[in-house]
Structures are given as C-alpha cells and as structure tokens.
C-alpha cells in the first residue's frame, strides 16, 4: 500500500533540494470525494497532497500545458516538473517520450503503484451508495475500499466500484519512474479486452445502430479530447482555426481552406470527429479511460480506443506505452505485418 507520508516526504525532498519547479499531484477538494489536480510549489504545500482510490485523473495532460507555457517564456526555468503518476498514466508518459513530445529530463516521475487494486469509477460508486453521499474513500488491503458517508463507514468490494480500465489494467504499477511508492505488483487480468466482447458479438447492423445512437448524443464539448494526454496537437481538425494564418494569407485562401468537419453537432459531423480521434489514437492510447470518464453524456468512447488497441495487439503485436525506444506503430513496419487489406 502506498503510504501517503512517504509520498509527501519524497515530494518535500525534491522541492527543498530545488530539483523540480513544482509538483503536479492530487489535492483534496473543498467539496466532497473527488480530489482536484494540485500544483505544489513549495515544501510547505506538500501537506495538501493526497492519495486515495478517487485519484483518477491522468495528470500527464498537464505536461502539455507546461510545454506551451515554457515555450512562451523568455528565460524559462529549465528544471523538470514533478509529476505523480499511476501505472496507466506512466504509460502515457512513455508515449509522450517515444514521440519526443517531451524529454526525459523535463519530468521528475513520482510513481505510485495501484498494487493489486485501482481507482474508482465515481458513477459506479454513486449508484452503489444509493443516494448516500461519499465524503471520503480509502484503500483497504487489495480487495476493498472504505467509504465514509454521513452515516458512517462502509466497506465496499473494490471489484464493484473499480473503473472499467482498472479491471483490464496492464500495468498496475508505473513502468517508468524516478521514485516509486508502493510495491511493484500486478492483479491478474484474464482478458484485457473483456469489455469489448459484448459489443463485438453484435451483428454489424446492431453495432451501427449502437454507435449512431451513442454518437448522436455528443454535444462536441471536446472534453474527451481536452483531457486526453495524447491529444496534444496545437491545431486540431476539430477546431475552426485549423490552419496557420500569416500576414500574407489572402481572404480567398482563408475561405478555401478545407473544413474537415462542421460545427453542427449532427450525426455525420460527430462521426467524423470521433473517428478522426480514434484513428489518431491507434497505437497511442494507453487506456487511462479519461475520455470516457469526463463525457457529460456518458458516451462509451473508450470502446473505440479499446478496439484499436486490440487490433494493434492482434495484428501487429504492438502495445503502446511500455518502451520509449520502440518505433511507433504507424511509423514503422515489419516484414511479417499483415497486408491482406491491401488489394
């Protein structure tokens, strides 16, 4: 079990030694169960750090902000940023390193191991508690969580409220780190693509219907894109500003720029958005599940990415986020790669 005091101690040490600019971790929020991302700038602030089964966020996304901020500073502080990562989050870091979006010395990695458990799906917990408001949640050995409500403490089987991605986790402890808290461990997962079975078994027509219904709900708030650590492009086809304008760009050129998708939240445009996103994440998504978590309409977006993850594994024996040195899926080929789709 990760000891919070150890986490604070490590964080305090690196801040005191001036090894890092600041640390991105989890902080208690003023209201309720879920934490908030915390930006810890001084050794005193380390007390704010927490580590609970509600620490779901993949904080690597904030490295994208940090990089942008740094690029604008005249004399940037070159020290690394401290970053608290879980196993899945650390795999996102590996992809960012592999793609050279960040350098290894941009970040001081404080790994926390989920050991044989994981983090919660808040919606599952709310359902489970049937109206009682959870104020606090703690780890309790590997199989349970302890939840405090106004009516006292209850023990809940972890398996009932764990996030879907945790039930299929491929790396319960960080695969890359500077310091590691907790044990290297792994919960056994029989089938990491189990969640896909139901939808894969549907006939094509039914699947089409499913996605038509689901994606028609999308309001294009772009939260799924905004939260994804892999969605770091400066310009995204989903935005209306997806081309560089210079002083010489004529009005005509601007008018004739291709608009890949319209702003109307209708089926056709929503499909373009989601398919572009899914394809751009093939061989990159590490299944942190954040996109699905944040969707206000509860659209099961994770299935799309999970399916591509499965294809990458089955067709190319490729798994993202384990080795920063491995060539990326879409920019490399092997002789034995399947090619039966080329006709």
């Amino acid at each position, binding site marked *: 079990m990760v000891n919070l005091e150890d986490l604070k101690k490590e964080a305090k040490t690196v801040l005191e030694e001036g090894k890092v600019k600041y640390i991105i971790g989890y902080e208690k929020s*003023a209201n309720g169960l879920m934490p908030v991302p915390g930006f810890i700038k001084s050794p005193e602030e380390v007390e704010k750090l927490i580590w609970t089964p509600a620490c779901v966020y993949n904080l690597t996304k904030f490295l994208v902000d940090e990089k942008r901020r740094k690029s604008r500073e005249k004399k940037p502080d070159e020290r690394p940023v401290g970053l608290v990562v879980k196993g899945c989050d650390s795999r996102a870091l590996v992809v960012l390193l592999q793609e050279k979006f960040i350098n290894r010395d941009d970040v001081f990695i404080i790994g926390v191991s989920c050991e044989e458990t994981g983090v919660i799906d808040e*919606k599952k917990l709310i359902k489970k508690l049937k109206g009682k408001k959870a104020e606090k949640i703690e780890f309790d050995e590997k199989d349970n969580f302890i939840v405090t409500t106004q009516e006292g403490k209850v023990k809940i089987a972890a398996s009932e409220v764990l996030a879907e991605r945790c039930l299929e986790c491929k790396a319960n402890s960080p695969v890359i780190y500077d310091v590691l808290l907790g044990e290297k461990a792994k919960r056994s997962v029989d089938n990491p693509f189990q969640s896909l079975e139901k939808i894969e078994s549907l006939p094509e027509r039914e699947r089409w219907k499913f996605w038509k219904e689901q994606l028609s709900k999308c*309001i294009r*708030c772009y939260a799924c894109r905004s939260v994804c650590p892999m969605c770091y492009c400066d310009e995204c086809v989903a935005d209306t500003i997806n081309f560089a304008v210079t002083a010489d760009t004529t009005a005509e050129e601007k008018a004739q720029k291709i608009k890949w998708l*319209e702003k109307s939240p209708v089926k056709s445009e929503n499909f373009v958005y989601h398919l572009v996103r899914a394809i751009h994440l093939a061989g990159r998504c590490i299944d942190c599940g954040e996109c699905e978590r944040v969707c206000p309409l*509860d659209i099961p977006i994770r299935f799309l990415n999970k399916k591509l993850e499965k294809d990458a594994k089955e067709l190319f024996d490729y798994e993202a986020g384990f080795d920063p040195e491995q060539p990326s899926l879409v920019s490399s080929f092997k002789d034995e790669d399947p090619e039966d789709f080329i006709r």
Partner: protein
Amino acid sequence: MEKVLDKKSFPQWVKKLSSYTVYAPVQEDEVWNYEVITNPEQVNLDFPNTVLSPKKIIFPQREVYLEFSASNEDGLEVKEVLPEEEPSVIFGVRPCDARALTLTDKVFGGDFEDIYYWKRRNQVALVGLACHTPPSPNCFCLSVDGSPFSKEGLDVLMSDLGSKYFVEAFSKKGEQLINPAKTLFKPPTEKDKKELDKNRTEAKKRISRQIQNIKKIPPKLKGMFDSSLWDEESMSCLRCGICTYLCPTCHCFDINDEIFSSSPLSGKRIRTWDNCQFPDFTMHSSGHNPRQGKASRLRQRIMHKFQYFVERYKNYQCTGCGRCISRCPVGIDIIEVLDKVSSYEG
C-alpha cells in the same frame, strides 16, 4: 390559480395535453435529459439534475437560418428557414433553469429580438417542479437571488405534497394548461397550504452550498482584470466546453455556412452554440487571439456572469444550478473561485 392534483391523476393531465408537444426528463443510462414524451405514463418527476437544461429546447444547439442554392441561371436562391410554431410544454423544469430563461430572454430580447429564439419561447409553457431536496449536491440558487421554490419564468409550479402536488399557475399560458383537465384538479385546503409553506422553509435549509459575500463580488471584479488569481485558478482547466455548454444561462453562438455541394453550390447557414472556453472563440481572422491562455477564458466566464451582465442587466448571469461544478472534469468550482475573488487582496 392554486390547485391540488392527486399524483395518480398526473398522467391523465398529461394525456389531456395532446395538442401540445410534451417534453419531460427522461433517463438514458445514467444521464437525464429533457426529451419529447409520447406516453404520458412515462413522465417521471423523480429525477436529479438533468445534464442539459431546457435551454436546449428553446435555444437549440443547432438552428438553420437559411438554405441557399445556385441551381438555376438567375444566381443564388435563398430561402429563409424559421422554426415551426407548435405549442409545447416542458414538465419538470427546475426553478433555477426557468430563471435562466428569464436571463436569456433579456439577451435575445430588447432592441433586437431574435426571431428564432422567440418563435419557440412564445410557444412553450414551462411547468416547474419545486426542489424539496436539492437535485444536485452543488445547488446554490439561494446565493444568486433564486430559491428552490422560485416561480420566476414559470407558467406553472408543482410542489410535492406526498400523495399529491400543489399546483400554482401564474400566467395565462399556465391556466390554459390546467383548463382542459379542470376536473382533475381540486382547490387546496388550508392544511395543504400550511404544508406547502413548511416545505418551502425546509427546502431552503437543505441547500448546503453558498457563495460568501456575493454582493461584494461585482464591484470587486471590476478591479481584477489583471489579477494573478486567474492564472492560479485556471491551472487545472482543460479548455473543454463542459461548463459553458451545460450552463442554462450561456447563450453565445456562432454562424457558419455549411456547404453540401460546391457545384452546383448549395448549403445552409447554420447557427450553433459557441463556447468562450474554446481557443477559437476569440480568434481573429488575422491569426491574432486576444484571449490567448486559459486564464483569460476563465476570467471571461466569471466576469461575464458576475460583472458585465450585472452591470448591463442588473442580474447575475448564473442561477446556481451547479452543473458546471458537478461536471467539471477537474473539479473547478465556481463557488470556490468566487470566494477567492471575495477574499483576494492585491
């Protein structure tokens, strides 16, 4: 008009409204939203906060302004498109969401009336449901001049009295909803009225969240345009559009020509919701963006709601529904931000 209605008779009332398009909260998976109802028995008024407010019916996310085509020799043919005028009624409107419509009324009304908005607005009757217990843990209507029993903007307000509803109609539109089903309604007894009063007082006590010193905030904000608070508070912001798209009072929109065929040319001019949290919201065609970072966008959201709007319309542009708090993927909490504004020194 004050009446009581047996809960058992409620579906019958809805049945009598067959000349209306009826909307009510519907649950799909874990998500509640207002949808068109075909079966009156389906109306379930035991629901938490909906994801989107009834704003989405009156000011839909996508609205066609006009259709154009260059199919003949005479040049471009342009056809105006207006929303169909059909009477509709929305059941289960929360008081905060109804108040929100009184705010969008100001924006889409006044000197320039937005015909698209008003065509729908004039046709829709709002039947509210008072909140005995707050439908969201982040409700804070009391802090922004609202209340769980507020009737502002509503045509009818229903309040739960256990086995029956206390039904009040405040407008002609409201009375017209009750008239076709007159026999189902009874006059309230003194006991009903007393119970209603008691419920009203108790409901207020159940609202646990509040903004400190709200009155001080608009003048305070005036001097905070360049404050470093915006940088601090927006550190974790992801730049997604949840807070604004789900807000019942946000009303910004964009207009685009969507081309379906380039030769012969045809397409539609379409208005869609826009979002001040998106980077392209303020992008100039020159490529310059006056609101560069996310701090300036958080500032805009707060300033618009608690300073500019107050200055212009004498109301906060926020009715305390709590959606932006509950749904923010990283827990940015407008109450906390405002409390920090109150206590900010520097």
